[in-house]
């Protein structure tokens, strides 16, 4: 069994009447990249600050490498936090920023110099010691902030949406870099973000948080393909939602009549009684355009194209079923196969039974 670096047990935090973090428990194994994904205001930052020691818990227990953190101030915890705005010290140069923590530990001058230069090397900023903070680019600042924490060899590195301030291109690049860096140093990362793509790309495990509670802790793949709650289904990746009623049940497959009159067969994942009201979720990419008539077991229906949403590899068709108003997003593979589809065309759409995700209302 792997060592548990961070263990959070029944942690609760209230601000007045508002419960920011409601009885949350989870463990993070050593060397993992663990993300907490949730909309803003879900309590993820509060949770992170409690781990760092910058906020007090109302009840519960936080252990780092098996040691209870109660009553231990932030400057004595073996965790470090990378702030949303990075919080680099503008009054010091890069070298002094990174040396700051080591100096507080009273390490020798030569030792500090060596460690600083080694860690800068590691984040590909060799020789940057005497640069001023305002001379750095956004990505370089990012790496200095990470180096400043990593040089202290923390048990857990906490990251509070550090990519939030970067532009899209750089953010994409940093995602990959951060993942590689984490793999290289092997430090346990706890990363919070509201950006599902950041969480899915980098993490070993992702916890989806909403209203102070975890909805699901899982691997990115499972979160995407097997969401456990309607919130996860909608928050992680795009989804088309359809509300309906179960009309028939055959084992794990149910027949659903949607409110606008369609009949679909879908996997249920959990037993549901006939007559139950459900939400049916369908990923845009699980819908096939003009499916081959020979394919069996497909839910097929006709839709009218309202518009084409071109977004490179992520392009979609915005459609609505004939005689219904429900808007649907359908993935549009950029293989030139479907270039003939025009606005207001009527086309056939099909999806396979296992692609449907059903939750009772």
């Amino acid at each position, binding site marked *: 069994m792997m060592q548990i670096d961070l263990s959070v047990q029944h942690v609760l935090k209230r601000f007045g009447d508002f419960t920011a973090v409601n009885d949350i428990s989870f463990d993070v194994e050593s060397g993992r990249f663990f993300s907490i994904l949730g909309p803003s205001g879900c309590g993820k930052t509060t949770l992170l600050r409690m781990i760092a020691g*910058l906020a007090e818990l109302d009840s519960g227990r936080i252990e780092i490498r098996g040691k209870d953190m109660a009553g231990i101030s*932030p400057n004595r915890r073996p965790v470090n936090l990378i702030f*949303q705005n990075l919080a680099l010290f503008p009054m010091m140069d890069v070298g002094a920023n990174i040396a700051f923590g080591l100096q507080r530990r009273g390490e020798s001058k030569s030792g500090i110099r060596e460690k600083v230069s080694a860690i800068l090397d590691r984040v590909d900023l060799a020789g940057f010691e005497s640069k001023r903070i305002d001379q750095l680019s956004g990505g370089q600042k990012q790496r200095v902030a990470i180096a400043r924490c990593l040089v202290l060899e923390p048990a857990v590195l906490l990251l509070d949406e550090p990519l939030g301030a970067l532009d899209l291109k750089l953010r994409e690049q940093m995602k990959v870099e951060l993942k590689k860096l984490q793999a290289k140093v092997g430090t346990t990362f706890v990363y919070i973000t509201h950006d599902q793509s950041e969480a899915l790309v980098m993490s070993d495990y992702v916890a989806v948080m909403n209203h102070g509670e975890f909805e699901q802790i899982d691997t990115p793949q499972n979160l995407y393909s097997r969401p456990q709650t309607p919130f996860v289904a909608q928050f992680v990746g795009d989804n088309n939602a359809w509300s309906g009623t179960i009309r028939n049940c055959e084992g794990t497959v149910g027949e659903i009549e949607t409110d606008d009159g369609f009949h679909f067969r879908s996997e249920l994942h959990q037993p549901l009684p006939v007559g139950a009201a459900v939400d049916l979720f369908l990923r845009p990419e699980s819908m096939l355009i003009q499916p081959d008539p020979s394919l069996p077991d497909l839910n097929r229906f006709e839709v009218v194209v309202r518009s084409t949403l071109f977004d490179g590899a992520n392009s979609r068709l915005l459609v609505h079923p004939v005689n219904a108003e429900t808007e649907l997003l359908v993935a549009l593979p950029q293989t030139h196969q479907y270039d003939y589809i025009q606005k207001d065309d009527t086309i056939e759409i099909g999806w396979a039974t296992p692609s449907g995700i059903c939750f009772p209302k």
Partner: protein
Amino acid sequence: MDKNGMHDRLRWGLLLFLTPVFLWLVLLIVLPQIDLLIMSFRVESGYGDSSWSLYNYRQFFEEPIYWLTFVRTAVYSVLVTFLTFVVALPVAFYITKVVHPRFQGFLTVLLLLPFWVSELVRVYGWMILLRESGVINHFLLRMGLLQQPVEMLYQDATMIMGLVYTSMLFMVVPLISALESLDNSLIEAAYDLGANMGSILYKIIIPHATPGIVSGSIVVFMLTLGNYLTPNLMGGKNSLWFTEQIYNQFIASFNWNQGSAFGFLLLFLSSVIVWLGLKLTRQNLRKVVQ
């Protein structure tokens, strides 16, 4: 063409409008200063006739009571500036970083409140509190903490306290604006990286607030050096302040030449001290004035 004409007329209008201001500056500020400067280089011999001389300036350096008084005044002013800073920093920090933002304005106004009455009234207030038959002595005697009333007034320590009190505002306000621009996350980051309160203060807060500290210190230093009332009223018999010597030269000795020489020496020497202070803290005036 037309635009040019308009511009010209606008400029003339402005010039006309500013003329009283210029006149006021020149007639009431610049000319008297020049008059005093000339006077400081002249020596009167007997009735009416006078000649050019450096005698008034030489007097300052040759007569120990004059330059010793200046040294005393300057040293105390530096001490007052430092103490004001030590007192003002926690106050400014509390107002900007600790207290709920809703009360910030209220606390700042509370800080300003004593400055709505004149310095004279404030000093008399202190005198009523501190004198031998004053309020504090009365209560200490009542409570049995003292057997004999103690004279708390007319001592250097009292005078310094009074000067610090008078100068507080001029240090707190620049400190507040300097600390307001300090991102809380810098403090938290330092804390997270293992710093204790002391190193956060020395490594983060003070370096960040340096421009505010320096501009506050210059104002406090100059005001203290140029103060007349507080040292005179609270300092008592030993508290000769350099401004009092200038006053004495003008008023008691009728020696305006000597008085103006002292005035310009005060201006010059205090500028030198401020310049030295800026050099020592590696600040420049332009940065600080911003």
